[in-house]
């Protein structure tokens, strides 16, 4: 018995048919699971040029080989599709319990095809796969949707759903499971376009593994080590909020839509202040850390607001990025985004874009439905979030994302759209950590913080301000993230305790595939996944010209950013050359035939050749 179920559900919403398919063993061995398997299926099944919000796009949800086992923090689920925000391939990895229970139900994944003619939800239980009417759910927020489905199917029902933002096709809508998100690139928008409100699962474990004794020994050894780990305990105590003040000191925490790098009063939204209103921890299946920080506002305008969060990214996007240091508003805004089903990063970034346009007089109150968009104005931030989710007034424009909004506004607005390939930048100032800049510029899904991390730059073992010499390290970081997303493991090292060796041992004990015992074999899978994603994009017309950063990063020295003041991206072209060379891509950013063949992607090589690349 292997930890893969070896089965996936294929559902066509247009003809309301579903079937169960076997996942071929070579696919498991060559792509692991999660992001890797999802990307392979999408590449094979999507014709080039498919409209992301049309019936021909597919949404793939895929678990990993360790999911639903007793190992720590390995039960996330990957969502893969073509992004309506970027037009590139999209991947987002969602925590919570949903993935584990999908696997308990007997499935490694779901491929959703077509488009329903009316609001629909999918229910999976021991009796089968059911397509049900979602008229009563349509219009509900994500918490109400969870409650309603649990009322219908029982308290233990696990749910992945969209909120009003997904229904209204806001281009950065998320999929939510309890309070965990498939958060970036508009995966929730694709669900909305398919009129798929939710997927609900009723099932129970446990899941069998290939070598239960060996698996238990390794997993329990890791858990014993983690129990007393100060890094893990710190994650449990503060979540990722502990990064804010440190990054702000380093000039990494962008302020006022990336105009500056430090913020007066940032302590008000730092870890200690947020911890004062923490009520409990929450988290994912099979995790003892539970890094989610449930916080409740006890006084002031936002008294009563409760949220599991905000995490570092959202502390930035709805806080520092808007020069907003009001703690209560952050909790309330985070909660509102989760209920409405909005990506907090793209939403906060889009609002920051609007605030800067207002600062510069490019837009005025006439454009913003009468709202004053001054830095630090959290009341109007809240109003804008609601407008975006309902696509009302000025929110209609911001719901398109910064790239499309800038195109519509004109007057030079594109200079203030902080995006790459259409995806809004996350909470890392590229000029202050050049390795991060290179990751964001070259990411196949746009500017996503979960596409590799520049460990050496952040640790200080390499010069974070250097304009050269980062290509190899960044290609390794992106490959490493692709492995993590395919396993699928939590990307917070202190939470899983996994290293490449222990991860390989666990995978062999879980699956019985001895190939996984060699960490280098897994690294090659990561490289294959990365290369296939790039090939998907090449097929859609992307190349070197798209691997860039906002103009500000390339031309404006960073202001008020402590040790990073004055930094600017001087040699992006040099870094791109290094990166392409390290991965065996041409200087146009296209995987070479030799590299594709080396990775066993001969069919893809033929596809690329046909394009004349």
């Amino acid at each position: 018995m292997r930890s893969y179920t070896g089965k996936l559900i294929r559902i066509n919403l247009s003809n309301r048919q579903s079937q169960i398919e076997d996942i071929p063993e070579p696919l498991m061995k060559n792509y692991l699971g999660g992001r890797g398997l999802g990307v392979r299926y999408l590449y094979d099944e999507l014709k080039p040029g498919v409209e992301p919000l049309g019936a021909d796009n597919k949404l793939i949800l895929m678990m990993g080989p360790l999911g639903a086992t007793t190992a720590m923090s390995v039960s996330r689920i990957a969502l893969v599709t073509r992004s309506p925000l970027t037009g590139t391939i999209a991947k987002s990895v969602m925590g919570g319990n949903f993935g584990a229970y999908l696997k308990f139900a007997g499935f490694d994944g779901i491929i959703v095809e077509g488009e329903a003619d009316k609001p629909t939800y999918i229910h999976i239980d021991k009796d089968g796969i059911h397509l049900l009417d979602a008229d009563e759910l349509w219009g509900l927020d994500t918490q109400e949707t969870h409650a309603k489905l649990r009322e219908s199917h029982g308290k233990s029902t696990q749910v992945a759903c969209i909120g009003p933002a997904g229904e209204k096709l806001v281009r950065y809508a998320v999929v939510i499971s309890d309070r965990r998100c498939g958060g970036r690139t508009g995966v929730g928008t694709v669900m909305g376009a398919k009129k798929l409100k939710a997927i609900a699962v009723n099932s129970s474990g446990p899941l069998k593994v290939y070598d239960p004794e060996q698996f238990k020994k390794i997993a329990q050894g890791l858990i014993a080590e983690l129990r007393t780990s100060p890094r893990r305990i710190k994650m449990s105590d503060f979540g990722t909020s502990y990064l804010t003040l440190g990054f702000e000191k380093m000039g990494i925490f962008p302020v006022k839509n990336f105009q500056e790098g430090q913020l007066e009063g940032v302590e008000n939204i730092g870890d200690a202040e947020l911890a004062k209103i923490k009520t409990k921890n929450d988290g994912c299946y099979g995790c003892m850390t539970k890094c989610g920080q449930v916080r409740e506002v006890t006084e002031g305008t936002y008294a009563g607001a409760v949220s599991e969060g905000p995490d570092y990214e959202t502390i930035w996007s709805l806080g520092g990025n808007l020069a907003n240091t009001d703690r209560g508003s952050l909790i309330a805004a985070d909660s509102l985004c989760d209920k409405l089903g909005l990506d907090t990063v793209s939403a906060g970034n889009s609002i920051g874009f609007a605030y800067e346009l207002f600062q510069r007089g490019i837009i005025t109150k006439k454009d913003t439905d009468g709202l004053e968009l001054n830095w630090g104005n959290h009341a109007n931030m809240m109003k804008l979030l609601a407008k975006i989710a309902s696509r009302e007034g000025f929110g209609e424009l911001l719901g398109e994302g910064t790239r499309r909004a800038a195109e519509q506004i004109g007057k030079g607005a594109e200079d203030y759209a902080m995006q790459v390939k259409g995806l809004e930048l996350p909470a890392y100032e590229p000029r202050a950590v050049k390795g991060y800049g290179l990751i964001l510029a070259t990411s196949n899904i746009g500017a996503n913080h979960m596409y590799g991390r520049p460990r050496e730059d952040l640790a200080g073992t390499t010069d974070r301000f250097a304009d050269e010499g980062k290509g190899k390290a960044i290609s390794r970081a992106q490959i490493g993230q692709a492995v993590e997303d395919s396993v699928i493991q939590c990307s917070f090292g202190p939470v899983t305790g996994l290293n490449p060796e222990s991860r390989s041992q666990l995978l062999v004990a879980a699956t019985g595939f001895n190939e996984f015992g060699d960490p280098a074999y897994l690294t090659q899978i990561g490289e294959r996944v990365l290369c296939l994603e790039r090939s998907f994009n090449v097929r859609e017309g992307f190349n070197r010209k798209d691997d860039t950063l906002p103009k500000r990063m390339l031309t404006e020295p960073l202001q008020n950013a402590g040790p990073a003041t004055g930094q600017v991206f001087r040699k992006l072209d040099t870094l791109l050359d290094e990166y392409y060379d390290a991965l065996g891509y041409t200087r146009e950013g296209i995987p070479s035939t030799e590299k594709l063949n080396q990775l066993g992607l001969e069919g893809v090589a033929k596809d690329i050749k046909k394009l004349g690349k």
Partner: protein
Amino acid sequence: MSVRVKLPPILQEPSGGVEAPEVNGRTVGECLESLEERFPGIKDYLFDRQGKLLRIFGIYLDADGIYPVELDTPIKDNDEIVILNFLMGG
């Protein structure tokens, strides 16, 4: 008490490249004060504007994590303080 403090690369910038300076103190907090005397400005990297140790740093005493007590932890002769920086998140 004289002890050695192993600095992470990011703190070797204010230490001028010194990786493991000797400092004095009866507690970890006093040792960090001593570090500041030797390398003026290093506290700016370690503490926030309100004087609290930034939580991106983890302090270990003879390989044992001392979180959350950290600064008040007493030092013995021949102890070694190790500072690590935790800079990953999402």
